[in-house]
């Protein structure tokens, strides 16, 4: 979707303003927000793509005025409601009212180290041979789906070069909607700065994205 998250090339947000000696967390609630997000992710009820889509589906005014952990928590409330774990009246009350759905798994402290060390690999076998090879010229599609996609707007309809052929990976566009993993080959595609940004672009800039095969056409 053409949501507020798709930020590449946008202007007007001001300086980056890196903070000197930045702490890992700025408030205790941020610690809890990170922990709750990871612990509920371990339910196995939704995947990372549905989770990302919930965040980018926030209203733009909300998204741009929220800190990052606030974005995570707002999206998490949506996911918990959608999957029946928590209800709106419970969120309003701040306490359990209904039994709700039971998850496949609850993450216990003794399992945390193993779960984090395992992570969630997204590579998958793809039977078909890769359609493109390193050095091939490709053009990205210019589509504007309403659902989740990982092809950023600034790189749509642009011509670039396949720099690397990667493994097969779960396709976010279907996976986010519960329509299956439908894995595809992924490619690192590099673009000249001026292809992306016109004649005003930096002549010594190369930008790459990692693109699923169906985002690409031969050029």
């Amino acid at each position, binding site marked *: 979707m053409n949501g507020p998250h798709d930020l590449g090339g946008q202007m007007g947000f*001001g*300086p980056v303003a890196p903070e000197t000696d930045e702490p890992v967390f700025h*408030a205790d609630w941020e*610690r809890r927000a990170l922990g709750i997000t990871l612990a509920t992710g371990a339910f196995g009820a939704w995947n990372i793509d549905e989770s990302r889509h919930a965040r980018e589906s926030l209203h733009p005014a909300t998204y741009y*005025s929220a800190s990052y952990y606030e974005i995570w928590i707002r999206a998490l409330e949506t996911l918990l409601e959608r999957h029946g*774990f928590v209800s709106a009246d419970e969120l309003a009350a701040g306490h359990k009212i209904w*039994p709700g759905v039971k998850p496949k798994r609850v*993450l216990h402290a003794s399992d945390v180290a193993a779960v984090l060390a395992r*992570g969630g690999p997204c590579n998958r076998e793809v039977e078909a041979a890769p359609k493109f090879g390193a050095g091939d010229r490709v053009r990205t599609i210019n589509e504007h789906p309403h659902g989740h996609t*990982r092809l950023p707007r600034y790189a749509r309809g642009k011509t670039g070069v396949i720099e690397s052929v990667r493994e097969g990976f779960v396709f976010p566009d279907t996976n986010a909607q519960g329509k299956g993993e439908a894995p595809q080959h992924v490619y690192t595609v590099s673009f000249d700065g001026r292809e992306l940004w016109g004649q005003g672009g930096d002549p010594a800039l190369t930008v790459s994205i990692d693109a699923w095969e169906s985002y690409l056409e031969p050029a």
Partner: protein
Amino acid sequence: MSHDHHDHHHDNELDPFAARVKALETILTEKGLIDPAAIDTIVETYEHKVGPRNGARVVAKAWVDPDFAEWLARDATAAIASLGYTGRQGEHMQAVFNAPDTHNLIVCTLCSCYPWTVLGVPPVWYKAPPYRSQAVINPRGVLAEFGLVLPEETRIRVWDSTAELRYMVVPMRPVETEGLSENELAKLVTRDSMIGTGLPLRPGSLGPGALWPPAADPGAAT
């Protein structure tokens, strides 16, 4: 959003959002859906155990060991795993090497993808709109904000992490470090130098706060 706005969201316990997160944790705990001790363990992991010291060790090893550097370039996931760094948000790693004519920069314009296993959780600026919007269109302007001004002819190579590959930059080894050990070299490798928004420290310039909350960094004293 403006800098003022951003600072406002560094939040404190009076923020109504703190109450909202507390309410959510209460509901989930009452329902038996989360184990508060598991939350504590997750926080402990990313606040005190997993951070840029990991990545610094990877870079220092690549500087002193050409075979490791070659492995890191060819199969970063396996090379990094050999040092014990595996798991969440580091499942599929790619190391990109700076060269005299090329400087690498990592960004995630769509969200906040970042190599947690080697750098820990990302800093606020990495996840915020100013960096995500400008890194791909005006990277030299972004680097200048970090005090890094590169020659115009130096190619800037920006890697937008749009899939599940996670990137780390391997900066060039600073000059005048011939006699330093791997552990000493690791102290020169800053977090920002592995994102691409900085360069490694020079010998003799080691100061506090070069990496991560130094007091919280178990590797800092070794």
